[in-house]
């Protein structure tokens, strides 16, 4: 039992419909973005019968738009703390849904947000699936990484 890119798409689209695109004006478009950007990476660790991470990565602009949409404010007024909270919660909600597709028993950790993803040891792992999308013209990616058992998810 393992999640697929289609599973991630379905989960992400439900999250967007509930929280980020409630009126259908800002849809998550299931097409790879025309630019790659992972300025902000939020993730939750899963540990137990399966070890790994569920990640949401996006550009700086997309992270501020997401925080603004979730908090009901203008993106210019969004603080770094707002971005961390918003992206962390997106990762948490998506992670909770992904966990239901993983072997049991597993537990979900608290969300973490990493701004400098390159070479970050917490983000090391084998990618088992990914969903790339474009949101408000910006890159948005959901992925699942598997880690060797005990590989630093605690």
């Amino acid at each position, binding site marked *: 039992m393992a999640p697929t890119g289609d599973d991630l798409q379905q989960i992400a689209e439900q999250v967007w419909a*509930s929280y980020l695109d409630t009126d259908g004006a800002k849809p998550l478009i299931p097409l790879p973005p025309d630019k790659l950007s992972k300025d902000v990476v939020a993730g939750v660790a899963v540990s137990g019968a399966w070890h790994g991470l569920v990640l949401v990565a996006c550009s700086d602009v997309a992270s501020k738009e997401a*925080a603004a949409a*979730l908090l009901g404010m203008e993106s210019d007024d969004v603080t770094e703390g707002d971005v961390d909270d918003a992206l962390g919660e997106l990762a*948490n*909600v998506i*992670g*909770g849904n992904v966990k239901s597709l993983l072997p049991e028993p597993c537990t979900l950790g608290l969300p973490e947000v990493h701004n400098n993803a390159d070479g970050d040891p917490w983000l090391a792992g084998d990618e088992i699936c990914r969903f790339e999308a474009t949101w408000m013209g910006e890159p948005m990616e959901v992925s699942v990484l598997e880690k060797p058992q005990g590989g630093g998810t605690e």
Partner: protein
Amino acid sequence: MKILIADDSRVMRQIVTRTLRQAGYDGHDLVEAEDGAELVAKANADSFDLVLSDWNMPNLTGIEALRALRAGGNNTPFGFVTSEGTQEMRDTAAAGGALFLIAKPFTAEMFKEQLDSILG
């Protein structure tokens, strides 16, 4: 009515507040708690008609907070709003004394379905 909303994410506390409004529950007195320990402290210091709690929180988790309330004789109606909705968690929640578990992402309709008998 007085409702205690416990979630370590300010974003999610705000979304829960907004969803309560969208579900038609306007005019209630809403109080927030940032983790399970604060939930227990506030729920024991005041009288609430309902607690809406996340599961996965620092200090005390939602289920630990619920057990602490019940062990202390506090029987405030309690429901979970959490990112995980497995049958195992629903069973654990029910065994701990929770009335319901709403899984994220949720809609105003899902709130109405669970809350109408309490707030309606």
